[in-house]
């Protein structure tokens, strides 16, 4: 870590942002290294967008410091804006302009010359599979096309750092996959990426390092590899029980001291063990109390487990919440 710190492109220290009484971002510190794909993972309202807004200059921090590429941006965010590309969570291009004109206009904001920006716009449209829609108005694009064009607009000036705010939320699986591929390619070509997401698998697949943010606080930052390490050797299983007896949890704990057994919700148990979990005796024990096993599922070690352990947030609840929001917006 020590040697890497000279290499850090974004350095945030004790950043805090309040909206009246609400503390949206609460004393967070982190670094993003050059060439890295850093994931910022957290549920709705955790403070992800607020953090991006402060880093890019749309929001003013109440306290703390921000350094981007060695420039102190806490007081003057304009200093580093030429190094930054931003893809906001909502597409905010001009509905009345065509895809091509939108890209050319965005390029001009960064001072690119006419010839250069036209070439680059055509290039990106091609690369993003939007050439056929180049001369159609942005207003008529589908959600996935809008998202792709918004990403193209974010990288048109070849920024060193790209901020992506939930790039795959609210679009179908195929488009989301394409977009993930585009992000991976960008990262391979050397762009440093700051990505927010609530899709844990997305973070696991794309990112090298992840910061978990919950209610404005960073609860853990680490590389994906070290996050997964402690659970790699563990076996996890979730058992759902119909008509569970009141004392079932206690009974399971006393009968199977070798397992750690946790009551996740009514009738749902999470069983973690160092050794392989033997399901037969468990089922028998449950049935003795009059319960009925409706589902038993082994869980492959994933960041999901880590996330649940660290944040204590049950994942299904978070996903449902998100889908609701995704649909309505």
């Amino acid at each position: 870590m020590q040697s890497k710190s000279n290499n850090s492109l974004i350095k945030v220290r004790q950043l805090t942002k309040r909206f009246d009484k609400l503390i949206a971002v609460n004393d967070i510190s982190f670094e993003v290294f050059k060439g890295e794909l850093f994931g910022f993972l957290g549920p709705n309202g955790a403070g992800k967008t607020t953090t991006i807004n402060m880093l890019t200059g749309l929001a003013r921090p109440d306290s703390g410091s921000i350094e981007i590429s060695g420039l102190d941006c806490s007081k003057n965010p304009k200093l580093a804006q030429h190094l930054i590309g931003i893809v906001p969570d909502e597409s905010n291009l001009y509905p009345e302009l065509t895809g091509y004109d939108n890209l050319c206009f965005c390029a001009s904001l960064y001072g690119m010359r006419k010839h250069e920006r036209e070439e680059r716009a055509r290039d990106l449209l091609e690369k993003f599979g939007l050439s056929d829609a180049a001369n159609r108005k942005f207003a008529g694009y589908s959600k996935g096309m809008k998202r792709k064009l918004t990403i193209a607009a974010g990288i048109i000036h070849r920024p060193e750092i790209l901020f992506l705010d939930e790039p795959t939320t609210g679009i179908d699986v195929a488009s989301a996959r394409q977009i993930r591929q585009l992000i991976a390619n960008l990262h391979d070509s050397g762009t440093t990426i700051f990505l927010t997401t609530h899709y844990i698998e997305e973070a696991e697949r794309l990112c090298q390092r992840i910061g978990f943010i919950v209610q404005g606080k960073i609860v853990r930052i680490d590389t994906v590899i070290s996050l997964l390490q402690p659970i790699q050797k563990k076996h996890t299983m979730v058992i759902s029980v119909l008509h569970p007896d009141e004392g079932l949890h206690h009974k399971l704990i006393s009968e199977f001291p070798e397992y750690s057994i946790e009551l996740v919700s009514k009738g749902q148990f999470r069983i973690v063990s160092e050794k392989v979990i033997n399901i037969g005796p468990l089922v028998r024990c449950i049935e003795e109390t009059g319960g009925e096993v409706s589902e038993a599922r082994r869980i492959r070690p994933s960041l999901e487990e880590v996330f649940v352990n660290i944040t204590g947030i049950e994942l299904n609840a978070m996903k449902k919440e998100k889908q609701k929001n995704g649909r309505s917006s």
Partner: protein
Amino acid sequence: MKRWIAFWNILLKDMRAYYLKPPNISWGLIFPVAWTGMFFIKSGKGLDSIISLLPGVVAISILFGTTSMLAVTVTFEKKNKSFDRLLLAPIPLRLLMLAKTSGAILFGSINAFIPIIIASFLADISHVNWFALVLAAIMIAIASTFLGLFIAVSVSEVFEAQTFSNFFRFPMIFLCGLFFPITSLPIFLRPLSYVLPLTYGVDILRGAIDKGNIMPLWLDFLIILGFCVLLFAISLKNIHKRWIM
């Protein structure tokens, strides 16, 4: 250089997307023509009155041509979030806002010449001081654009911007000596006239068209310039305070 590429393209984009749209062009033309016609006919004094009405009609054409544009180029873009793109670009806020207002200023200045061209067919305008006239038209365009900007950044909905600008525009027609001299206003209203920038613009216009100014032109000019700087500075401050949260 890079900044000027941005400046020029913001201006050009607004022109293409908003100003040169048929409804705006037709409004820009119809409005001044309608005002001109209405006043010339209504005054009933025949063609002789054209010269005395001209300053007021020119001022109205500019006022209406500029103020309504900012509700679109600023308030609307802020509402649909595309304005954030501009705030995120490496352009100083001051230059950005100049780019966003230049289109309206240009549009307003051009509007000023519609009544003048019409009048030139109907009356003798040979002893007009053209230098002062053009200067006045530009200054009125700048002042009323910045007034529109001030309103546009103080509200968050387009309809609020429109309501609010009418709240300013209509009283200004009467308070700024467009058609009646300020001296004929009730004494308690007169201080209001003097805190409105249009008063000074109209005075320059009067001076340019028939030497009817009540104050020295250079003083008018300095005061209206002061208003422009003040309105722009307050608007920038408001953007900083309200939009960069």
